[in-house]
C-alpha cells in the first residue's frame, strides 16, 4: 500500500542544514495498522508530513498504491490519504460549523448527496445530527476529535495518517477514540499509519511498529514481539522497559 524507499530529508537554512530523516525504508500492507514510535525529535511526524505533502524536497521514493507520489499533487493524494491531527483544538476551523467542516471536502470533490454523506459520516463516529449547527468551541475535545475523524473518512480514503490522535485527550476519552479507530478500520478496511510516543497506545492499535530514533528507523517489530519483549535493539528495549515499568 505504502512503500518508502531510502527516504531522506533535511531542512537547510543559510547557515546550517539539519538532517531530519535519513534512509527510511518501510513497507506498509493494505489494511494494516502501522505505528511509528519514538521520542520528540525522532522524525516520526516528519514521515507523515512527507507523505501528506507538507514537506517538499525529500530524497528517495515513496509509492502509494504502486504510484510514486513525488509528482502527485495534493489533490491527487487527497483521494487516497487523509490525516487526523494531534490537537483537536487546532484541527477544526474555529469559525466553521460542523456542517461546513464536513461539507467542505464534498464541495471540493464535487460530490452529490452531501447531506446524507455528512449525516452518515457523523453517525460513523458516534455523533448525531444535533452537532451539525455547532461550532468547534461548543463541543468537547473528544467530540472534536470525532469530527476530525469524520472529516477524514468522509471522502472514503484508503489510508489515514494519524498524528498522535489521542495524546491531547483524557484517558477515558482516549479509550473511546481508540475503540472508534479500531472499529472504523475493520469496517472500511482502512490502512493506518499512526504516530505516537506512547507504546501502549501504539501496541493497542497497530499490528507492526517502527521504532525511530534521531531520524532513523532502528527496528520494525510486530505487536506480539513487542508484548512478549522479544526485541533485538537496545533502544527499543529501553522504551519498552519504561512502558512496562509504568503499568
Amino acid at each position: 500500500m505504502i512503500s518508502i524507499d531510502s527516504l531522506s530529508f533535511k531542512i537547510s537554512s543559510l547557515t546550517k542544514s539539519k538532517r531530519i530523516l535519513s534512509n527510511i525504508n518501510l513497507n506498509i500492507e493494505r489494511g494494516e495498522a502501522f505505528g511509528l514510535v519514538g521520542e520528540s525529535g525522532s522524525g516520526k511526524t516528519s514521515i507523515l508530513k512527507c507523505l501528506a505533502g507538507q514537506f517538499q524536497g525529500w530524497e528517495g521514493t515513496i509509492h502509494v498504491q504502486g504510484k510514486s507520489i513525488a509528482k502527485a499533487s495534493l489533490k491527487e493524494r487527497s483521494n487516497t490519504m487523509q490525516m487526523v491531527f494531534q490537537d483537536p483544538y487546532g484541527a477544526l476551523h474555529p469559525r466553521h460549523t460542523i456542517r461546513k467542516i464536513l461539507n467542505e471536502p464534498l464541495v471540493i470533490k464535487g460530490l452529490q448527496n452531501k447531506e446524507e454523506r455528512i449525516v452518515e459520516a457523523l453517525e460513523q463516529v458516534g455523533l448525531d445530527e444535533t452537532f451539525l449547527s455547532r461550532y468547534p468551541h461548543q463541543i468537547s475535545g473528544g467530540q472534536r476529535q470525532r469530527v476530525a475523524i469524520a472529516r477524514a473518512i468522509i471522502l472514503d480514503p484508503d489510508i489515514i495518517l494519524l498524528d498522535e490522535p489521542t495524546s491531547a485527550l483524557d484517558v477515558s476519552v482516549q479509550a473511546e477514540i481508540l475503540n472508534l479507530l479500531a472499529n472504523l478500520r475493520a469496517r472500511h478496511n482502512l490502512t493506518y499509519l499512526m504516530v505516537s510516543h506512547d507504546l501502549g497506545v501504539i501496541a493497542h492499535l497497530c499490528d507492526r511498529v517502527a521504532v525511530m530514533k534521531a531520524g532513523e528507523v532502528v527496528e520494525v517489530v510486530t505487536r506480539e514481539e513487542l508484548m512478549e519483549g522479544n526485541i533485538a535493539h537496545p533502544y527499543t528495549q529501553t522504551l519498552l522497559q519504561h512502558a512496562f515499568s509504568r503499568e
Partner: protein
Amino acid sequence: MRNVETIKNPDYGMGLRVNVEPTRKALFVKSFKKLCKNPLSASGVVIVTLLLILAIAAPLIATHDPLQQDLARTLSAPSIAHWFGTDEYGRDIFSRIVYGSRVTLYIIFLVTIIVGPIGLLIGTMSGYFGGWIDSAFMRVTDIFISFPSLVLALAFVAALGPGLEHAVIAIALTAWPPVARLARAETLTLRNSDYVVAAQLQGASSFRILFHYISLMCLPSLIVRLTMNMATVILTAAALGFLGLGAQPPLPEWGSMISTGRSYMLESWWLVAFPGAAIMLVSLAFNLLGDGLRDLLDPRTE
C-alpha cells in the same frame, strides 16, 4: 440555523455545564452588550450611531437648507433661529454640519470598501504564497508606506484634479498598505495551522483556502483596523477639504467649512469651532469604537 436546547454529552459529562447553543442573533446581542459595558466604547457606539442617524435623516433634522444663502443674515452668532450661527453667505451652519455628515460618511464608506478587500487580498496572498509574490507585493506596499499619507494623497489629487471622488481614491491609495501588512501577518500565523493543512489534504485550491479559511480568520482584526482607520480617513478628508482639494463648494464638507471660515475666525468663532468639534468628536468616536471592537474581537487581548 437550528437551535438545539440541550444535548447529551457522550464523553465529557462532567456535569459542569450544559451546552446551550446560542443563535447568531443571541451571540450578536451578547457581544453588543459586552461592547456597551465599557463606557468609552459605549460612547463611541453612541456617537457613531448618532452620526448615522444624522446622515440618514438629515432633511428631517436640519433646520434650514444647507445651500440656501441669506445675505441679510451673514455671520450671525448662534441664536434660536440659527443654533450654530450662519456663515459668510448666511447659510445655517447647523444644517451644513448635519448634511456634512453625509459627505463624511460617504468618504468613510467608499474608502473602507475599497481598502478592506484590496488590503485583505494582497495581504493574504502575500502571506499564503510567500516567495516572489510576497516580495513583489510587499515592496509595493513599502513604497506606499514610505510616503507620508497626506503628501501622497495631495500628489494624487493634484494629478487627478480636485473633487470628492478623487479625494476618495487618493485616501484609499494611502490607506491600504497598513491593512495589507496586517492581513499578511495574520496569514503567516494561520497558514501552517492544522485546519489549513487539513483543507490542503482534502485538495482544496489555494483560492478556496484563502477565501474560506484564512480570510475568515483575518476579518476580526481587519475590522478593528479599518474602524480605527476611519478616524484617520476623516482627518485626511478634512485636510484635503481644507486645502480645497476634496469636496468642492458649495457642498457642505467639514474640512472646507473650516477652510472658508478661517478668514472670519477672529470675529466669528462659530464658523470654525463647530465643524472642528464635529471632526474631532467623530474621529474620536471611531477610535473608541475601534478600541472596543478590538477588546471584543481580538482573542489576543484576553
